[in-house]
């Protein structure tokens, strides 16, 4: 029992919350489950092509290529590639995690992968254009340019916060999950 709770913290927390909400107002419970169902549906829709891409990437792209393009010595070229991969994408951030892991597994540099994740989360081109239409050019530009600069600066310096050992564990973890 204890082990089950420890291993499934989120599930247990969610069920407890659902019970509390049911006591307050059953409508919340219905709405929660409806939301969950919609989330699962939209995830299942976006997930198959992502895993096809991951599988093909795994099979076709040799490790040496990834190291040359996005590895330790890839410099500005690696960052630019990470930016384009993140910007020309679709789907929620959580869909980017498996892609990030396969990059790490193939020897991409951590800072490039982190940059890719950050760009994916907020600077995806379809979203940026949508932002322009909803928020107006000026407001959207302030948000996007500022975030871009913050992401670039942090990608340049973030590895200084990690030891060599910590950086190498990312690759091992990625190996485990892909």
């Amino acid at each position, binding site marked *: 029992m204890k082990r089950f709770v420890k291993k499934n913290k989120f599930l247990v927390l969610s069920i407890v919350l659902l019970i509390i909400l049911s006591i307050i107002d059953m409508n*919340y419970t219905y709405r929660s489950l409806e939301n969950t169902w919609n989330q*699962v549906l939209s995830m299942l829709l976006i997930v198959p092509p992502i895993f096809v891409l991951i599988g093909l990437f795994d099979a076709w792209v040799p490790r040496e290529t990834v190291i040359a393009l996005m590895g330790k010595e890839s410099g500005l070229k690696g960052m630019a590639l990470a930016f384009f991969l993140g910007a020309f994408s*679709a789907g929620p951030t959580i869909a980017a995690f498996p892609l990030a892991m396969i990059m790490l597994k193939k020897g991409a540099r951590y800072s490039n992968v982190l940059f890719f994740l950050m760009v994916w989360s907020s600077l995806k081109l379809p979203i940026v254009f949508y932002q322009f239409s909803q928020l107006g050019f000026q407001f959207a530009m302030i948000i996007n340019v500022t975030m871009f600069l913050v992401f670039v600066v942090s990608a340049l310096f973030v590895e200084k916060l990690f030891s060599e050992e910590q950086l190498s564990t990312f690759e091992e973890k990625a190996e485990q999950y892909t």
Partner: protein
Amino acid sequence: MSTEGYIIYGLAGLLLLVSLVKDPAKTKLGLKKGFKSFMKLMPVLLPLFLFIGILLAVVTPEFISSLLGEESGVFGLVFGLGVGSITFMPPFVAFPLGRELLENGAAYPQVAGFLVTVMSVGIVYFAAEKKFFSAKSAVLRNLISLIGAIIVIGVVMVVYA
């Protein structure tokens, strides 16, 4: 399905076709690998959806607009950053909400803080991110984005002063 959905399906389909023509055996291996990682990742991700479902039932757009309205001041700033950081919302819900807030007289900095964090900071993803990368990495990514949001608020305050 959204346009982005079609784009990614198109891309995956096209590459799959090319791969099949070039080397069916290798393609099969690739698909097997993809499916394997799918099976490994889903148990981590599925409980998250239940949690997000509950969160979105309570933190509705109406709830957010009631607290981010006109003259919400410093409280509005903190609330916008907080609620944006915790929740996840699809862009086609979040941005129209931001626009509606602005049209109803909410101030730009509050809305900016909410929109930036709702996109880039994902505390609901933390458990998964920690498992896949590391706790330090997950904290850093979210923290960097939160700092970014605060800088955006600063810039917006200067520009729209």
